[in-house]
């Protein structure tokens, strides 16, 4: 409990499992992240209907036991305001061992809530939840050119093991 109180003192938010009521607030945040990804590579150009697709995906995932969907909610004066989103999933590695992989697909926080150790809190909380869902290894997916993410994960012991190489047709 003391540990949690300490964390709250640093992080101006708390992570909780998302509910169907959150989808309206979470979808635009997810879209912001995808637009940020577009900044890193033109092959990540977002679709025109991205907001609708984001809502659809969130609706499906919120009911999927293999999916992890977390909402970051402000505390204090920002109580009740959704300020970030985390998407993850546990999937089977068919050819490799250990077999269950917890993958972090998306982490997005509104600019004002970044820094101050928030990333650390989000990651450890997310990893703990993926682990609770059975994950034996944790991975993260993000655009290759996103050096901020790549440094963030490298600092926390992650290393690149596979990569996606793309070419427009």
């Amino acid at each position, binding site marked *: 409990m003391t540990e949690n109180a300490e964390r709250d003192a640093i992080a101006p938010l708390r992570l909780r499992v998302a509910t169907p009521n959150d989808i309206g607030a979470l979808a635009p945040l997810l879209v*912001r*992240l995808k*637009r*940020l990804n577009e*900044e*890193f590579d033109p092959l990540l150009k977002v679709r025109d209907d991205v907001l609708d697709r984001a809502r659809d995906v969130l609706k499906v995932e919120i009911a999927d036991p293999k999916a992890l969907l977390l909402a970051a909610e402000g505390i204090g004066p920002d109580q009740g305001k959704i300020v970030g989103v985390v998407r993850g999933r546990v999937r089977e590695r068919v050819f490799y061992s250990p077999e269950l992989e917890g993958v972090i697909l998306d982490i997005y926080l*509104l*600019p*004002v809530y970044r820094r101050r150790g928030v990333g650390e809190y989000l990651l450890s909380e997310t990893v703990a939840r993926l682990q609770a869902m059975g994950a034996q290894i944790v991975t993260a997916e993000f655009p290759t050119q996103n050096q901020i993410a790549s440094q963030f994960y490298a600092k926390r012991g992650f290393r690149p093991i596979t990569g996606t190489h793309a070419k427009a047709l």
Partner: protein
Amino acid sequence: MARGARSRTAKRRPAARGTGKGEAAGTDESVEEAKTLALGERSIRLAAFYQGKIETVPKVPVRSLEDFSIWYTPGIAAVSRAIEADPDRSFELTGRWNTIAIVTDGSRVLGLGNVGPRAAMPVMEGKALLFKFLGGVDAIPLPLDVARPEELIETVERIAPAFGAINLEDIASPKCFSILETLAGKLPIPIWHDDQLGTAASTVAGLSNAVALTGRSLRSTRVVLFGAGAANIATARLLIAMGQDPRKLSLVDQKGVLHPDREDMDELMIRNPWKYRLALQTRGGGVEGGGIAEALSGADILVAASTPVAGTIQADWVRTMAPDPIVFALANPTPEIWPATARSAGAAIVATGRSDFPNQVNNSLVFPAVFRGVLDARARSIPDELVLAAVAELAARARDHGLSETHILPTMAETDVFPHVAAAVASRAVELGLARERHRREEFLERAQNLMRRPAKLALELLRAGLTVPMPDERIPRRSRR
């Protein structure tokens, strides 16, 4: 964008000093256009005649070729060895102490945009002339053919041994910020980007007097900066450093008030982290959303450094500002709102970038003196503390000359001001431990006065001696205005 939001005094004659009364916008504009057109024609004729504006001239006696045994081999080898033993002696045994490079990639020249390095040259030559004439600084124009910021940075690193300081000029925003930051971190000499710092320092000096004159304090004023280009981003930083509350500072660009909830924040984080940081620092300055009209409501101060179109700032918006508002409309050649219009809408103090209206915010008030100061102190860098020393001195000197609504800054004619600004910068560099050359302030002042007085005298003497050819389109050589 602060495109064109600065001045080039030497190009505009202080003809018909405006009273700030009764100029009709339409007439003013057409007169101004005709004037600019005529000046352009004259510039191109005289450019063809003189084929360059500066040349190197010996500053040592050369009576015969024999003197070269001192100025060149064999004597010079000893000088070379001395510098090899102590590289800092390059500042005292060569002209490095007074030589700077004017570096540009030609990516944002005047209001012309990306004209490239060759077309940037005449402008850089003009700047070199200003550096010499106003600051006594030997400036070498160096437009570079570079595609990426890294190439510019590497080139400047490699030429740095020849120079006492570097002036970056007409480089597009936001790459100008990263280039300045990177070079300042790498090189042991001052790096300056005039489009940011020159304009910002002169703006902030004017503001500090305007604030005092209207009975305000910076801490409690609400400021709106319209245009989030190089100049206003630097202005925001300097204002905050001087005690302005960032939560009462709104930056406004084409997309509206810069606020951390804005959709383009992540794009800014990647492409313009300086603007991104200001968004987080200011949080919109207490304005929740909307554009310039919403931001101005109740604001004390407007600094527009945006588009050179009169009417960009509307009189109705000025009317909604706090009582006795301060309006700086800095776009050149046409201010965002004409001074008379701003005043009739209630503005207590109006400043523009033009010499034909009162209160000219002009980077030429700043850069020659700042360079004189850092060069005389052989400073290793030029942190904001030095810029603020220049700001404070400039503001104080304006007060000495008599503060009023139409005199919040020294004019370019008040040439006694500049050596004082130089001395203030040099002494501050000593205080901060950045100076290779430590003197008392009076010594710096005397040195600056001598060095800054000489070029005008030199130019006049050369003309009198017939060594500078009089302008062919003038029958009688024009007398120096200084």
